[in-house]
């Protein structure tokens, strides 16, 4: 319970302590990164280190957003340990559907230069039709997978309106990727989309040499 945090919080007076707890709760629970200007415990580096230490107690780490704002995510080592635990990974259908959403809403716009290099959020929805055609899943299973992905904050449904076609974009959880996780995801997408490309060969070679080195 709270005793977990006490060794970290005990040195602070009541006001500082409340600021630390507010910042911790905000980065852990808000849908989007929170601006540091509104949270003294995120603005001041010494206090921010304490917030990071509070997060580390649960294997979490601070993730800096684009614009002096902060959220939290799993530390890379902890994410790797959780990914090895069958109880913590998504069903294979959900992963397949999520990959399709990422290919259509991020990888293709990025390859055509309409989306920046280091973002996993996208204004270009993967059309629902496209998902139905490409997923090879019965429509009921596709809908169930999309529902689970929406509930988990991994995709967001964009309603069609005006000239805009509806569909799915990556959800708010993609704010929470660490720089290391964003890089790995980029590599995985290259391996999935162009397994025979020179880039994919380079990624495989680098991973092999990393494995041999460790």
């Amino acid at each position, binding site marked *: *319970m*709270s*005793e*977990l*945090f006490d060794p970290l*919080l005990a040195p602070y007076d009541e006001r500082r*302590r*409340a600021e*630390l*707890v*507010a910042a*911790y*709760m*905000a980065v852990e*629970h*808000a*849908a*989007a990164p*929170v601006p540091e200007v*509104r*949270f003294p415990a995120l603005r001041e580096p010494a206090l921010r280190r304490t917030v990071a230490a*509070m997060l*580390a*107690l*649960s*294997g*979490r*780490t601070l993730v800096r957003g684009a614009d002096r704002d902060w959220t939290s995510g*799993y*530390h890379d*080592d*902890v994410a790797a*340990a*959780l990914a090895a*635990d069958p*109880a*913590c990974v998504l069903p294979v259908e959900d992963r397949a559907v999520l990959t399709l959403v990422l290919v259509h809403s991020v990888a293709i716009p990025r390859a055509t230069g309409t989306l920046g290099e280091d973002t996993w959020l996208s204004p270009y929805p993967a059309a629902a039709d496209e998902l139905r055609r490409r997923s090879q899943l019965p429509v009921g299973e596709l809908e169930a997978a999309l*529902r689970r992905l*929406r*509930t988990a*904050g991994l995709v*967001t449904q964009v309603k069609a309106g005006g000239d805009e076609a509806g569909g799915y974009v990556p959800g*708010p959880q993609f704010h929470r990727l660490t720089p290391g996780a964003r890089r790995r995801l980029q590599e995985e997408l290259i391996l999935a989309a162009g397994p025979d490309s020179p880039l994919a060969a380079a990624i495989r070679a680098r991973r092999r040499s990393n494995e041999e080195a460790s």
Partner: protein
Amino acid sequence: MSDEWAPGILARARARVTGAVSVPAAEPVPPGLAAVPDGPRTWLLPSWPDGATPAVLEQYELAPMPLDRSGQARRVLAAALRCCWANLDDAPWPGVPAPVPAVLDVYAGMTRGDAALAGRWATGELRRLADTGWLVLDEARGVVRTGPRTALWPHEALGPLRDLLRRMPGPSREALGDE
């Protein structure tokens, strides 16, 4: 940061992924998790510093994680609480099991339109609320009760909820299976 992760850290990280899970009551509770006893089992839930809850987001006007059909989810939870939190002077947990048709009946009284469709939506919502620990659903026996998360509601937050539930009509006798 150290490369060595204490088992407690991984257990807490895992609990954040899995949400509410129950373990045999004899198993030790990893430090930093809230334990909610439930007969022969114990529910493990993440806990937060100094009694804070995600309601702190409202103070800062920050959006929480979006939820599909959140209004419907709230109404179904309210209908379930109306049936399972039998004695409002007590705490909501562990409550009493209520027949699912009774909860659907209370929910139908809060909505307009096609009752059969509302019932189907509400059944899906009951499952979703059970998956996330707000309710405990036993589909084989057709009963539902309050979930372990309600055990962590702060006492001071219960007053307005009690007032709301006192004003809500209960299930009909037919829905309760009475003759």
